[in-house]
């Protein structure tokens, strides 16, 4: 491959938040007309890097060169002027307007307030023809699918003469066919000399599209690979770094076969295709996989918060109800991913938040026994070490970790048979994390089923007794605690079979 000239060069970028370095002397080089992938685990610093390039954050130290000339990017407008555009996961188009109107929104060509539609339409048409998109300038965005909308976004970027288009997880909400269309579009752009910075967790997409690849880890650039050098093993190893051999010789957990949740042939919309598994009392079952593969939907289906389109869910042979209220009575509990919106009521006190799911036990004939309620709360605050230990404090005022203790405590106090957790330690600091693990373990030891969805690979390998990795709407591989490594789980999540796991 011939050497292409450099479009954007970022040198020695540093950034701190509250004294914690997030980017440490990062270099990034993007050439003209290349698809450059940026990879790294959550928290590796990818988003921060992009936000600096696009003017959302300002860097503490470093330099950005555009076509060899140093530039200052201190706001989004600056980035746009330099020819840098971003296409976000959450598309920003206006459904009620046409393609043309959307592309020119905010910079209409007009005279006396009347828009010159014909002129704008002509320009959009020229642009569509130049890049060979399959779009109609007069089409309403509301009547388009996700992939087409994305094309409009790309067109909008091109209309602003973007030389570099940044795509952040562009395929997250696309179907397989739509993804294919997007790839064709990207290919076309590359041939026309537009550079693409492609951020994705899906390794298979990267291998297919990227000319070069930069891997970030812990706020550092750990290497650049060319197309010839990329292999799944190499990339995942670079992402995870040196894995410290964990002490896997912990005491064997007692499994209680008497308490068993069984899911067979579960399908949900087109996200979950055919999910089968058994979870037993006494064990913590970890569920891994990439974000958006349907892990959240799976546990919401089990809990009764979503209606599966097919399949059977049974607890000890009895079918699980589709009603959340009935399931809670039957011993289910859910710690949701979106803590603030679904997990707790921010304005209510610790006491009320703890008691909210247990009024069946705290009330008689619909009247709450105040004494029982206070005792219930005080026991939980003491038992789960919720800080500060003031039962009247609104939960919204607590730290993330203590909020999560309240959510977890609400269920633990009921001694649930099945506890479902979705990203239970997201945004929780390290110390509290271990307290949460301890509480989960304590519950499992009493014979309850604990199912934990997590994107944190270290958490899965450290806490779970058994790990099921989801890929493409199915469970792809199963790992025992003893065999699991972070690299293997990450590979399995990308659809690559590993020697450590058992294929399902």
């Amino acid at each position, binding site marked *: 491959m011939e050497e292409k000239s450099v479009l954007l060069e970022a040198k020695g970028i540093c950034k701190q938040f509250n004294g914690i370095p997030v980017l440490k002397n990062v270099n990034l080089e993007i050439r003209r007309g290349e698809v450059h992938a940026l990879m790294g685990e959550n928290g590796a610093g990818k988003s921060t890097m992009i936000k600096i390039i696009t003017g959302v954050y300002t860097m503490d130290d470093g330099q950005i060169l555009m076509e060899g000339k140093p530039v200052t990017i201190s706001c989004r407008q600056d980035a746009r002027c330099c020819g840098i555009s971003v296409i976000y*996961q959450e598309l920003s188009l206006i459904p009620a307007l046409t393609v043309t109107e959307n592309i020119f929104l*905010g910079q209409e060509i007009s005279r006396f307030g009347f828009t010159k539609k014909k002129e704008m339409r002509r320009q959009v048409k020229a642009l569509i023809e130049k890049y060979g998109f399959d779009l109609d300038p007069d089409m309403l965005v509301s*009547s388009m699918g996700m992939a087409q909308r994305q094309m409009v976004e790309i067109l909008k970027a091109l209309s602003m003469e973007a030389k570099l288009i940044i795509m952040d997880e562009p395929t*997250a909400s696309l179907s397989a066919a739509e993804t294919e269309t997007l790839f064709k579009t990207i290919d076309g752009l590359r041939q026309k000399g537009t550079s693409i910075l492609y951020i994705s967790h899906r390794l298979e997409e990267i291998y297919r599209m990227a000319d070069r690849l930069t891997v970030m880890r812990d706020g550092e650039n750990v290497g650049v690979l060319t197309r010839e050098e990329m292999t799944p093993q190499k990339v995942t190893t670079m992402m995870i770094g040196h894995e410290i051999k964990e002490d896997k010789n912990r005491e064997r957990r007692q499994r209680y076969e008497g308490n068993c949740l069984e899911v067979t042939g579960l399908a949900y919309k087109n996200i979950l295709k055919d999910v089968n598994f058994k979870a037993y009392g006494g064990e913590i079952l970890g569920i891994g996989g990439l974000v958006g593969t349907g892990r959240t939907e799976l546990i919401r289906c089990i809990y009764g918060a979503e209606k599966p389109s097919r399949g059977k869910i049974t607890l000890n042979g009895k079918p699980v109800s589709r009603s959340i209220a009935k399931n809670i009575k039957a011993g289910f509990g859910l710690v949701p991913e979106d803590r603030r919106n679904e997990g707790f009521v921010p304005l209510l006190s610790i006491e009320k938040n703890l008691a909210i799911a247990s009024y069946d036990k705290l009330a008689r004939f619909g009247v709450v026994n105040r004494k029982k309620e206070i005792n219930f709360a005080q026991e939980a605050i003491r038992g789960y070490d919720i800080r500060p230990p003031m039962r009247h404090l609104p939960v919204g005022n607590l730290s993330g970790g203590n909020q999560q203790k309240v959510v977890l405590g609400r269920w633990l106090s009921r001694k649930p048979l099945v506890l479902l957790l979705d990203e239970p330690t997201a945004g929780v600091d390290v110390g509290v994390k271990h307290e949460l693990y301890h509480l989960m373990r304590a519950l499992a030891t009493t014979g309850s089923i604990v199912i934990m969805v*997590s994107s*944190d690979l270290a958490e899965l390998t450290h806490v779970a007794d058994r790990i099921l990795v989801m890929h493409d709407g199915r469970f792809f591989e199963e790992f025992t605690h003893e065999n699991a490594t972070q690299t293997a789980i990450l590979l399995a999540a990308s659809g690559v079979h590993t020697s450590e796991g058992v294929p399902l």
Partner: protein
Amino acid sequence: MNKKNLRRVISAMLVIALAAVFARTSDHFLSARNILQLLREASFVGLVALGVSFVIIGGGIDLSTGGIAALTGLVCARLSFIPGIPGIAVLLGGVLTGVACGAINAFLVTKVRLTEFVATLASGFVYSGLALIIAFRRNGIIESRPILNKSFTVLGTHVGGVYYITIVWLVMTVLMMLVLTKTNFGLHTYAQGSNPKSAQMSGVNNNFIKSGGFLICGFCVGLGASMVVAYQSAAPVTLGSAVAFQAIAACVVGGIVLGGGRGDAIGALLGSLFLTLILNGLMKYGLSIAWQSILQGGIIILATTFDAQFMKLPIKRRVKVKPGTGKEGH
């Protein structure tokens, strides 16, 4: 045919179907006189709906139109008693009152930063109260005094059977349709109603759009109320009591989705026609006010359900947010 047009055709066909039913069951329904009377009745609600549709499309709501109508009516009445005042000046006074009320709403929303709902709920009460203050009284009791200013009341008459208010309504509808589809302001109103954040990011001035909506709304309500007062030759303090919610109902029936970003002036027109037709027609069947009210509610529920279910309108895609997991241990 795209969905926008489909929805419009459906509304129009409903109006025609309803008219056909009434035409079959009543001999004089299709008489020119009856139709022109119907149009006159629809004009007031129609003008208010037209105004409020701007606010709704922009993502807001205006509950104060009833108060604005009452106040405007009484300002017109008061002005018309000034000796020698030309009717056009009275009309101008009425319209300006409406615009002023709209400006106050805009101020409350953009500067005081109240939500549209609260701001216009409160201001509506204030406008109604102001109307009561300037109402005519005899021995302290409010009375409706007949307006004798011929140059003003002529605005309430008709030319060749078509009432002036109907002409004004139709002209305004065409005008507003042009504003919505052909101007930056119109496009930005849709953008703002659909997704205020991304509109702002694209360079749309949110406050400007909001203010414009309220001003247009005030203008339309002022115009409509003044013309109605001219027709009735009186300004009852109850002038606007029902119109605010009827206008919103007309918008909803006409496919203007509460929440913003959808619908247009033609929708407001068709919705107003439909509501007037059904209320008027049922009156002829001798259905009580109670049933009319219940039916109106039912129609709103049907229209909204239809828009949500069959037009697949505001469906939000669940976008997953990557959890910010802190890493540990390696």
